[in-house]
């Protein structure tokens, strides 16, 4: 099939020179988007959901998460960084939350905002949305861009159940862009708004937002990259601290379990699920109407939620423990959410209905699809059934499908080539 590669942007890059063709990435991809052919891995942009599994699985630095270089901020007169709530769980306990935040600002930003500052507003908005949409049960969280894409490609019947409102960092972007523009009297193009993100799915979402009605951010920086730069200047910051607001209570957003507990209420039953395999299992059961007793399901592709993102530096369990400690011990600054509530009532945070991107269909015409399925089953009986991935397809079934779709041949099967007579 000839597909234009440019239609879907992905923040995952393959460095062919480093790729050994080992197929580790092929085996961990939840949407079977990767194939190794001629000993090089390639990603099908239609199937990829940016979960980051392949980035973590590659031992040869051949699959690289792309994000923006910090110097792009200098193109703008006024620079704002919005920090993802998992960021502060990355630092060891001798580096305080406030100092880490101050250090980010000193990397060249005029202002630093936090995803965590709108958590209370998000919880309120989610509850209201659930109550207004009782007919679509359960409502599925939409903050994780990998989950949204997974639903588009594998569970399109569940698209109406997605929470159709912007994610917190985009809500902040909208609100602060307007505010800065008015208060500083600056045109839109002079204001640069950047996210500091824990995963490739968020980088992709910045460069190719789903359902957004307006221009949002101007770039996305990896948590790991910013972490390194913060570490370089942290001693200086610790010696010259300035007062800075922090929002420890809002950091719950980084932990899927805690977020579900917050939304849970007398009339709202919430479930929390994390890890892409668990997410797929749960979505399949939602499809079968077996989780209709839940009003809301928090779905995060990474372990424990955003703390598990592949651009983070700390183990997701350690980061979660640190964030829980901050939530318990810290005092949060008051965030005025009245303005945000007004904007929500006006429908400013609506997103356009998300469209399906089905990848499973063999053909638009069911009769042709059936013919292809029959051929797949024929090839399947010829293949050894070892699911070894040595051919470069994840399973024997996937190879049979690739052969029928013209993307591989029976000769790609390494086992068949070796023992042509044994399998007669």
């Amino acid at each position: 099939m000839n597909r234009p590669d440019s239609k879907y942007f992905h923040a995952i890059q393959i460095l062919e020179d480093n790729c050994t063709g080992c197929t580790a990435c092929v085996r961990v991809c939840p949407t079977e988007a990767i194939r190794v052919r001629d000993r090089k891995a390639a990603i099908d942009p239609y199937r990829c959901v940016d979960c980051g599994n392949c980035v973590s699985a590659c031992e040869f630095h051949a699959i690289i998460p792309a994000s923006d270089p910090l110097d792009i901020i200098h193109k703008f007169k006024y620079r704002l960084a919005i920090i993802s709530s998992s960021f502060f769980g990355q630092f060891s306990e001798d580096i305080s939350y406030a100092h880490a935040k101050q250090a980010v600002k000193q990397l060249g930003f005029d202002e630093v905002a936090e995803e965590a500052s709108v958590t209370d507003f998000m919880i309120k908005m989610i509850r209201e949305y659930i109550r207004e949409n009782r007919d679509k049960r359960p409502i599925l969280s939409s903050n994780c861009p990998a989950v949204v894409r997974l639903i588009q490609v594998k569970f399109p019947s569940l698209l109406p159940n997605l929470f159709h409102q912007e994610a917190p960092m985009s809500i902040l972007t909208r609100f602060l862009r307007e505010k800065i523009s008015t208060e500083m009297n600056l045109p839109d193009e002079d204001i640069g708004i950047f996210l500091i993100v824990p995963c490739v799915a968020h980088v992709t979402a910045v460069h190719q937002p789903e359902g957004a009605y307006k221009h949002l951010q101007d770039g996305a920086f990896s948590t790991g990259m910013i972490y390194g730069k913060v570490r370089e200047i942290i001693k200086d910051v610790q010696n010259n601290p300035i007062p800075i607001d922090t929002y420890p209570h809002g950091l719950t957003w980084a932990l899927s379990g805690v977020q579900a507990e917050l939304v849970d209420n007398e009339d709202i039953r919430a479930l929390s699920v994390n890890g892409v395999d668990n997410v797929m299992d749960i979505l399949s059961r939602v499809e079968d109407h077996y989780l209709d007793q839940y009003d809301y399901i928090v779905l995060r592709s990474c372990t424990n939620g955003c703390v598990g993102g592949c651009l983070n530096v700390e183990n997701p369990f350690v980061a979660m423990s640190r964030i829980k400690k901050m939530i318990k011990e810290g005092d949060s600054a008051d965030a005025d959410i009245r303005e945000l509530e007004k904007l929500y009532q006006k429908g400013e945070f609506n997103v356009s209905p998300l469209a399906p991107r089905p990848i499973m269909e063999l053909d638009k015409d069911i009769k042709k699809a059936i013919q292809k399925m029959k051929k797949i089953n024929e090839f399947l009986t010829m293949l050894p059934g070892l699911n070894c991935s040595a051919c470069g397809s994840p399973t024997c079934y996937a190879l049979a499908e690739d052969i029928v779709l013209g993307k591989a041949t029976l000769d790609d099967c390494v086992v068949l080539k070796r023992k042509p007579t044994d399998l007669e």
Partner: protein
Amino acid sequence: MAEYWYYADGFEERVQEQLHNNPEAEVDLDFAIPEKDFNTAGKGSSELKNLLKRLGVDSDVLRRIAVASYEAEINVAAHSKGGVMKSAVHDDLIHVRFEDDGPGIADIEQAMIPGYSTADDLVRELGFGAGLGLPNIKKNSDAMHIVSDIGSSTLLEFFIFFG
């Protein structure tokens, strides 16, 4: 031997015609359902759903098939000595048969009443046995047929048309 037929409005003729002509299925998919094995029960309907997604079956129809086949699969695991699930995919409908090794349904009409259940304690402990299995299959299919011989075996089959 007891027999039960259900047809959704307007489907009796289409189903009888299908049974009479008995055309060969385009794609077959068979699964064994072991007795009281709730770890694997549900796998057959899950595989069937993946197959139907590949064929591009409309998502609302797909969800009805998924519910009906899952309920029937769990029924066989919970109430029988084990059995098989045989799906026959045609280009305009799906016909799924569940054949078990007994013990048979004593009173089919009673089993069709929502909330009625003969599930034992083990099954209930696992969260099944709410008495909604058969009514749910009926609700989601275009036709359903049960033939049961007490002391011997049960056949449950349902038909769902794609368009």
